[in-house]
């Protein structure tokens, strides 16, 4: 189940945000502090997470302190499902 969350979010980030559908996102890869996901796409990510998993991310959580990796984001999603 957990792998499923990571796989879906990874696919969304690679395909929709980065426009590189073949790119793999490592669970420990830095997403926000590295600039891989720029600030213009943080809202997209939160809308996707809410629509797909029914989990609300507050706008004050859209930063590297709250989650900076796929693993950390998946953990937040799991904890709120």
């Amino acid at each position, binding site marked *: 189940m957990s792998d499923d969350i990571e796989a879906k979010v990874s696919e969304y980030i690679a395909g929709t945000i980065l*426009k*590189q559908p*073949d*790119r793999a996102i490592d669970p420990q890869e830095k997403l*926000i*502090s*590295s*600039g*891989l*996901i*720029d*600030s*213009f796409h*943080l*809202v*997209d990510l939160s*809308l996707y997470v809410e629509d797909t998993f029914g989990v609300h991310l507050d*706008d*004050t959580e*859209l*930063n*590297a302190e709250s989650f900076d990796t796929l693993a950390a984001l998946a953990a937040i999603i799991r904890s709120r499902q």
Partner: protein
Amino acid sequence: MTPVTTFFSRLQHLYETDPERTAIIWMHAREPEHPMTRRDLIRQAAGYAAALAAAGVRPGEVVILILQHSESLAAAFFGAVLHGAIPSIMPFLTEKLAPDSYRRSLKSLFEVTHPAAVVTYPEFAAELQDAIPAGGSVRSVLLSSEVAPVPEPDFPALRGSERLPGDVVLLQHSSGTTGLQKGVALSHEAVFRQLASYGKAIRLAPDDVVVSWLPLYHDMGLIAGFLMPLLSGIPLVLMSPFDWVRAPYKLMQAVSQHRGTLTWLPNFAFNFCAQKIRDRNLEGVDLASWRAVINCSEPMHYQSHRLFYERFRAHGLRESALATSYAMAENVFAVTQGGIDRAVTVDTISQRGLLIDRVARAAADGEETMRMLSCGAPLPNVEVRVVDDARGDLPERHLGEVMLRSDCMLTGYYRRDDLTEKAFHNGWYLTGDLGYMADGEVYITGRKKDLIIVGGKNVYPQDLESLASEVPGIHPGRVVAFGVYNEEMGTEEVVIVAEKDAEAEYPAGAGPEALSNEIRARVTRGSDIALRQVAVVERGWLLKTSSGKIARSANRDKFLAGKAVTAGG
């Protein structure tokens, strides 16, 4: 009549006439909104003036401000003014920007502007000390945490009272190593002439309320979203760009709650708001008070206005509120204004006419059309001409470079007389923008210079190219960066095409992607610009001009043509 005054006397006047009036309503995420009265603002500013005086900063010297979008930034800015020093606001270090690149930017800023002091926040102090060259101009670093408000400002004793209307009051930079070499120096009188003229063009009135999320290190945010309301005594509701980009609905809620009347937005923000706000965040939101939402600072698109209007009309947005302006820091701010007394003119022209014949004419049978949004008519104090390469005037509807002349131009690029001289032709400022005039209105179609505008921010391709050239395996200098318009986002996205070194082998199991990932990482950390596409190509792919230089536009065309073929095949 042009009021000739100084920032100092205007601040004193505002303080003495109605000190309890709200100057700024701050909206910070995670905090209740915080009204700041004129008295609060000016007492805090006087605290900064005292601190600058104590640090030995002299009137007329430059003070760099590196502060978050906050009360401290507003107070430090006006504090420098009260002391007669020249403030210049720098973006602060974001978490994704590499410290060494930021340090390099600061160094290039310091070398040109010779600041006497820097004001920053305590967390940044150590980082800043490393960036300050020994034996350089900077004599003092002030921390915002150590500056206390002054209970009662003693205006006659403040050194800002000595400044004259023709003196430089502030410097404004665009971003990147290149942008930081060109500080636009503006005088008190230039700013007030702009405000008088622009105020008339937008029918600015005492019951207006400006709502803004724009950064203050950019002309649109600094002038329209900060100085104009404050110096005109009009309330300002201010949120940070950092918060807005994560919660765009807060703009709509702020307009609704404070009966906002005026907002300036770069084109991409029209798309961003239309696409990224949930219905539940608009419950009870009423936008009927908005009388002008002014599209400015990057190429404007008809479709962006439609998207915005269709999304928010059910929440009271009036179609007549959609407005446009053509602006630049060199003219303080606005050159034109459209959409105030009547709807923005939409000029439907032939695409072929514009691109091939360079004339904005009606489409013949079978020709593709395009809808151009008018920037409106020049302000009363600004003259606009469209000229050919020999600087001869072109007829109406012919495409050429836009030149302008006004009584509110920059004093010069600060300490760069060479650049100032190059920017003018017989007293006319060469904008580098391409456009045409029709029925007294200005249309901007593109740029002569290879400048990329991403989300309203000017980006110099050479800065990005030199960052990408540092990647091992990329042939230094064999890199181009250019912008490609993304219709969904309503702004340009940056593409980099880089040639691999002939000898460079890809790491085991990795292809060009390993190099392109490295380019992305370096460019983002070095410039704060996220790249949309990076193509690593074989040696010899890039086209060169006869003089051996890499031509950005030719390579952009080649890249786009290649993509079209791939997509089709």
